[in-house]
């Protein structure tokens, strides 16, 4: 039994990794739940790529600097959100197309900039995060992003729900519709930046989507889904970190794979539309 706790009591870096990843999950997973409900899972993936050049430019200027790369990532992500939103609202292009256009430009720029500095190790750091090397400043940053994100999420919760179910209903209330839409995309960028410090740009989205997708196989109501998804994400981080410790595997992919396992288990055994349930429950009531 001790093996399950020992790494976290013995080693400060494991404690930090656990606290950091839990902070990221607490902020990011509720946003992830809404991304799956709004069919925006892949939008998130695009956005994760879009923040790369911001982080890369900041890295060119400041080196591996926590604050610098955070600001750079945020700036690039928000710029892509604003530009693609503006194009889709003022031209005939749909949002997915305009977003794809800007994120691809952004991604190409990011890879180009990173290659100028020729260091594969640094590139690796940006792409896969370094959850096992979080210092105090990084922890503080993740906790702050988590707090801001939860606060904004609570504030936007009502218009966001209405915007998802019945966008026309909200559009009549003027500013709230735009606030819900852009506010949500902003939340997505904020949490992706937090996620990229932990598990890297490419896997940050897994932290948001996988627990949300898994939770939907167990519960139906929205509030239950939010809570279940957060609990799932905590479990995934804990199991992932433990696996990475004992089998000497990189932490980011271990966490995402633990979450992936949870998702596949839910897919098969989930009580709400899981595979086995669907195949076996053919019984029905009389009325």
């Amino acid at each position, binding site marked *: 039994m001790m093996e399950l706790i020992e790494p976290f009591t013995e080693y400060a870096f494991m404690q930090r990794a656990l606290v950091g990843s839990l902070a990221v999950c607490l902020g990011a997973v509720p946003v992830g739940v809404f991304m799956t409900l709004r069919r925006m899972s892949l939008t998130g993936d695009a956005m994760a790529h879009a923040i790369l050049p911001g982080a890369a430019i900041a890295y060119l200027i400041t080196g591996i600097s926590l604050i610098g790369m955070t600001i750079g990532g945020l700036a690039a992500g928000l710029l892509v959100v604003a530009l693609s939103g503006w194009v889709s609202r003022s031209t005939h292009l749909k949002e997915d197309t305009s977003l794809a256009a800007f994120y691809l430009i952004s991604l190409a720029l990011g890879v180009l900039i990173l290659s100028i500095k020729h260091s594969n190790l640094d590139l690796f750091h940006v792409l896969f995060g370094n959850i096992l090397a979080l210092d105090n400043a990084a922890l503080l940053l993740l906790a702050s992003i988590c707090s801001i994100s939860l606060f904004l999420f609570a504030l936007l919760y*009502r218009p966001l*729900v*209405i915007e998802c*179910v019945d966008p026309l*209903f*909200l559009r*009549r209330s003027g500013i709230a519709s735009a606030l819900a839409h852009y506010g949500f995309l902003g939340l997505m960028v904020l949490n992706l930046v937090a996620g990229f410090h932990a598990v890297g740009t490419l896997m940050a989205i897994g932290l948001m989507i996988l627990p949300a997708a898994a939770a939907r196989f167990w519960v139906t*109501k929205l509030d239950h889904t939010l809570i279940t998804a957060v609990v799932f994400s905590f479990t995934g981080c804990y199991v992932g970190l433990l696996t990475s410790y004992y089998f000497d595997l990189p932490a980011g992919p271990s966490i995402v794979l633990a979450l992936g396992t949870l998702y596949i288990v839910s897919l098969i055994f989930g009580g709400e539309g899981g595979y086995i349930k669907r195949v076996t429950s053919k019984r029905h009531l009389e009325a």
Partner: protein
Amino acid sequence: MTIELNNLTLIYDKHPAVHHLSAAIEGGDLLAIVGPNGAGKSTLLNALAGLRTVEQGKITGLNPDDVAYLPQQTQIDRSFPLTVTELVATGLWQRIGFHQSIGNKHQTQCEQAIAAVGLKGFEQRMINTLSGGQMQRVLFARVLLQDRPIVLLDEPFNAIDAQTIADLTRVIQCWHKDQRTVVMVSHDLEYVRQHCPKTLLLAREPIGFGSTQDVLTTDNIKRAQGMVEAFDESAPWCRKEAA
């Protein structure tokens, strides 16, 4: 309060969807908008709801905050995990906004609205388990909760069974009795003759406006049906004076 439509023209890609329409909708009117497909009925309703810009002419006497608008059901994501009560409660949005809590008073209003549309016992059902008719009842309950002086309904009884139509018609009649202005788009001429005192017959151009009996004559209906659905690409520019 009278809503004045003053020489109103609404345009899609240079072609008029509603062409030089003038009408006065008086406070407390129960008005049907009738006409063939493509006649501009929903476009007009959208303009009244404040959801599209008015290219020419004017709508006066209409405050967007006074309007409860029920569009056609296709706009709603039925797979979103909300209960009946939660969806109905979104009708409180204009009153409670981002942060005001839902108090006992609001909860009671919510329950009353659900009961008024005949859905007692459905409060905790998920909306994705409802039939089309039940969903329309839920949306009527939301309009009840919005509690606005002007109600706009876009083909509310499309593909709805007779019992549901009868029940929801009672709700509409209550609104009419309360002196609310109700404007509904409908294809069912029989229904309109029976329940709506006033009618606007639209075929892009206004064919008739006034008491239903006077408007829905065989002649007028024939004229409306004669509307050519396709836009005329070689039509000259309209020279009628703008208001």
